[in-house]
């Protein structure tokens, strides 16, 4: 039953690694995965040494060329044992990767005005999304935010795909001092957005979804809830969503998400 859209589990290799502020950017050879990528997909990687849960990472970029065939980039924020291990991997290290996983961002049929919000490493999937949207003729405005400059994913390259870029930091070290929740209304207003895409903390996504709803815009949010397996096997990643009929039920964040409609999330129950 496997088809071309199905994820793969491959023995990958770290091809390059570089520091980007508080993050580490890894370029990984993961045969077959880049070819199937759509913006909003993630990969699940295995950590060594008796750690059984997978670690999920947004696919940040797919490079077509290269001696190794297509490769993928991920942005690693070392916060716990798994991400610290990942960030420390040397070039040449073997790494088990499963992907691309999850529902990607849904693209609008029409060339509408889009706002893309990336908080912290949540900006990672916004860059390839911006490119796809621009290819479709959408007007793309990018919002990147972080507590401080070191956790701000460089928006330099995104400027090519985006009409405008808004930078927000908690400490005001670059761009606007503040947070997404405080700025999002103004951005939506200015850009006259029809669609809002966002990835980041639950609180930020909730604020974005609410602002979009208020304006009558459509929102798609990429949730970061713990994904023990990432592949849909364990039922360990429940997200409460409200169906058309008003009933809240649980879906799996890894296969029914991580990207979901912002107006459908039962934010109260998600907590």
């Amino acid at each position, binding site marked *: *039953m*496997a088809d071309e859209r199905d994820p793969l*589990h491959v023995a990958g290799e770290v091809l390059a690694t570089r520091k980007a502020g508080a993050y580490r950017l890894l370029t990984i050879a993961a045969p077959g995965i880049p070819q199937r990528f759509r913006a909003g997909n993630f990969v699940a990687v295995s950590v060594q040494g008796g750690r059984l849960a997978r670690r999920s990472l947004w696919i940040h970029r797919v490079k077509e060329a290269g001696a190794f065939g297509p490769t993928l980039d991920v942005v690693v924020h070392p916060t716990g044992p798994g991400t610290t291990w990942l960030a420390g991997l040397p070039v040449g290290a073997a790494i088990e990767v499963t992907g691309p996983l999850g529902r990607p961002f849904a693209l609008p049929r029409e060339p509408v005005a889009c706002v893309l919000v990336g908080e912290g490493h949540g900006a990672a999937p916004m860059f390839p999304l911006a490119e796809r949207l621009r290819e479709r003729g959408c007007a793309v405005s990018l919002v990147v935010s972080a507590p401080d400059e070191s956790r701000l994913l460089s928006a330099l390259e995104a400027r090519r795909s985006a009409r405008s870029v808004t930078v927000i930091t908690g400490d005001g070290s670059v761009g606007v001092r503040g947070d997404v929740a405080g700025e999002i209304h103004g951005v939506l207003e200015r850009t006259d957005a029809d669609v809002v895409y966002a990835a980041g903390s639950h609180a930020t996504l909730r604020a974005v979804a609410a602002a979009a709803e208020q304006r009558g815009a459509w929102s798609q949010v990429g949730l970061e809830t713990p994904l*023990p*397996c990432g592949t849909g096997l364990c039922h*360990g990643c429940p997200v409460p969503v409200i169906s058309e009929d008003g009933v809240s039920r649980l879906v799996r964040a890894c296969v029914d998400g991580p990207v979901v409609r912002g107006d459908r999330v039962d934010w109260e129950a998600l907590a």
Partner: protein
Amino acid sequence: MSASTDAGRGFGPVMVASGCGGTGRELAAFADLAGLDFVTRSITLDPRRGGPSPRIAETPSGLVNAVGLDNPGLEHFLATELPLLVRAGARVFVSVAGATLGEYADLARRLSRAPGVGGLEVNLGAPDQVGQGLFEVREPFHAASVVAAVRREFPADLPVLAKLRPDLTRVVEGARGVLDAGATAVVIGNAVPASMPDGRPAGLTGPAIMPVALRCLAEVTAELGPVPLIGAGGITDAADARRFLDLGAMAVQIGTALLHDPTTVTRVRAALTREETR
């Protein structure tokens, strides 16, 4: 022992453990479902929402889970999940869990009429049986009565597996009881009762518990002689599987390893087949 070994012919040697293969659809990307022995997550009569998040946490070489029997209920399962598995050619063992003997009987009766069901697995060892409102199987005779109730309602030519917890002080009596009650084979074992980091009841699975499951299997074989057993607990590769098979297990189940590497069942099946044909 009234084990109807006929019904058990052709299991395994590698099965997907309950609760670790998703709905089957997701596993299809990593394993050929055709001919695969697939145990569903435990299905109850009514839908269950399962426990709150986080449901699964990492422990050294293990996972603790408090998934809490999240499942869509029998009707929805029959309508939306079973058909895909059957179409794909899997041998589907529906894992059943109930609050009363009547519920177990009901589940068995209704599943006996569902086209394509390959067998049942009776979940008799959820790590928090009582907290989850399941039939209390503290004493071995409770487990036996559940199996008897299920067996009565389910076609005699289809296997009924009885899944026990790897609890050394009860597993021998438990196995004897469920086999006498008509179980085709005994699955040893389930998760070991444990705590989530925040203290909620949970079940420990994965490589951490393998020596515990092996001991229970060995003890049952030592006490009851060669009876149909299926081993589970921490299997990650063919060598692990071989340890259970060498102790007399007719098949093994793989759970946690699939969450870490969804190709595990495929790999282990292939490796065991290679070994056999060598």
